[in-house]
């Protein structure tokens, strides 16, 4: 039984966002690249499933500039993944989910897995395009916004809970399939120091960049080009409402919401 986990390198939460000189990209200066938050849930879920299905191996895949991809793959190995494959982004490829999906689709197809796990959306572009696109390329059904994934009577089927509008939907899934994770119910584990040290020397398979470029080619004319990366104008602080009593404050606020902000229902 093979489980594939897709792990995207994203700037860590402390990153001070600012555009680079071109105004088109995030300035990468000083950025620490870490696994996207929901991808940590996906890793955790893969490791939990492995614990209850002996003989299962978990392989992590990451696409991007090679140093970034291999940094997050090492953290995935430190957490307990058995193997890792880095998929080098051909230089100059636009940061589009369809390109990423084709590249990852190629890599996963070389290690056929019964279950592909990924994040619902990555904390940087928050697109949610890559998972379902990979599923389409691999001919797998996909199930989104899962918060809990369990084996159901053996390793052919899963029962998952999905956090959809209005509540939790229970779904039965026959493998092979792709499942994208929202927040996992269990907090993801943290890596132990000896495992972090060991992961630095762990082998990482590399997919040759020429193969990657060929896999992306069918989507080449469809890729989105980013023309601007902007920060919102700084909020200048609230307009404070002066009032003489709670009722006065309430009347003033309702008038403002109605006449000035025009958001009163």
């Amino acid at each position, binding site marked *: 039984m093979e489980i594939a986990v897709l792990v995207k390198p994203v700037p860590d*939460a402390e990153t001070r*966002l600012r555009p680079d000189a071109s105004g088109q990209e*995030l300035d990468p200066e000083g950025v620490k690249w870490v696994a996207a938050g929901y991808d940590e849930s996906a890793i955790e879920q893969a490791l939990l499933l492995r614990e209850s299905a002996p003989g299962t191996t978990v392989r992590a895949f990451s696409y991007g500039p090679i140093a970034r991809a291999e940094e997050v793959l090492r953290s995935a190995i430190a957490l307990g993944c058995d193997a890792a494959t880095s998929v080098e982004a051909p230089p100059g490829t636009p940061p589009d989910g*369809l390109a990423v*999906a084709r590249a990852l689709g190629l890599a996963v197809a070389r290690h056929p897995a019964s279950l592909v796990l990924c994040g*619902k959306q990555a*904390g*940087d*572009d*928050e*697109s*949610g*395009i890559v*998972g*379902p696109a990979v599923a*389409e390329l691999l*001919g*797998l*059904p*996909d199930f*989104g916004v899962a918060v809990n994934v369990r084996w159901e009577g053996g390793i052919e089927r899963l029962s998952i809970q999905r956090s959809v*509008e*209005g*509540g*939790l*939907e*229970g*779904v*039965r899934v*026959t493998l092979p399939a792709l499942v*994208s994770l929202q*927040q996992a119910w269990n907090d993801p584990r943290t890596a132990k120091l000896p495992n972090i040290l060991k992961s630095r020397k762990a082998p990482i398979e590399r997919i040759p960049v020429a193969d990657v470029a060929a896999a992306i080619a069918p*989507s080449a004319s*469809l890729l*989105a080009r*980013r*023309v*601007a*990366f*902007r*920060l*919102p104008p700084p*909020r200048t602080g*609230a*307009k*404070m*409402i002066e*009032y003489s009593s*709670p*009722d006065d404050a*309430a*009347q003033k*606020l*309702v008038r403002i*919401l*109605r006449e000035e*902000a025009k*958001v*009163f*229902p």
Partner: protein
Amino acid sequence: MSGVVVVLERVPGGIASVCGEAAGAARALAGGGPVVGLLVGPGDSTAATELAVDKVLTADGPEFEHPSTAQLGALAAAAADAAPATTILFPGTARGRDGVGRTAIRWGASAATSVTEVTRDESGSLHVRRPVFGGRATEELELPGPRHVLSLKPHAFPLPPARSPPASSEPLAIPDSPKSSRPVEVTGFTPTAGGKGPELGDASIVVSGGRGLRSPENFGLVEELAESLGAAVGASRAVTDAGWRPGSYQVGQTGRAVSPQLYIALGISGAIQHIVGMVSSRVIVAVNSDPHAPIFQVADYGIVGDALQIVPALTREVRKARGL
């Protein structure tokens, strides 16, 4: 002419409100071409035909009651070919958004999700704007034509008035489905605990309370104000961690991200982990007893005062203003 297909999602008692918004946005994009709704699943189609669309195509077989992403993608592509249309809009719901990447691959289109602005240029490319990094930044993308698959960010586009007379509806010619297109095998559904009023992620107004409410009983004041406004109820993590309300209420980095028209924060300090979940709301109002609370930095309007007094007064005033 560049028609648009709007994929419609059924919710109990009608069609998700974000589909109505998408129909309005589609009109501007279609440039005189048809705007066609695609209604998937068995059931009544009246609500769909009252949206601002020219026609509704239906796929109402029992095999589409719980459509998989692959089924939705195949049906959307077939509807676009029938319309004819060069753009497919999926609703900005969890299930809708999953359709975007899949359909773009299948139909040979460029793709973007959570779009807040969209225009078409002479070459047929779309120019879109969308939030990234939890609303802390935005990006502008050029999506090459001729085909596009998008989802829109909820509430970024106005809801057009209902259509009368209703649009006509007819069955879509169903394409052969690939093996990956089995329906989803749904085994159960548990509504979100305490789910009165609209759903947090879909509401155009959210009223949230924090530790400043002082007790789980007082948190009822937040819920009363929300009810008077027809709003969803949210909470800070201090509230959900303390068990005053379930975790499904939590707004923020480790909870839900919301971007309503109006967000009202009551007794919430404005920690960064809370801010990232609500900062992209259009108008933000804060009530806090501490004039230096960080929430006032991101709010548009602030009231310094005791929430336990201000909130009931506000509820009374809202009820009066709305004739409730």
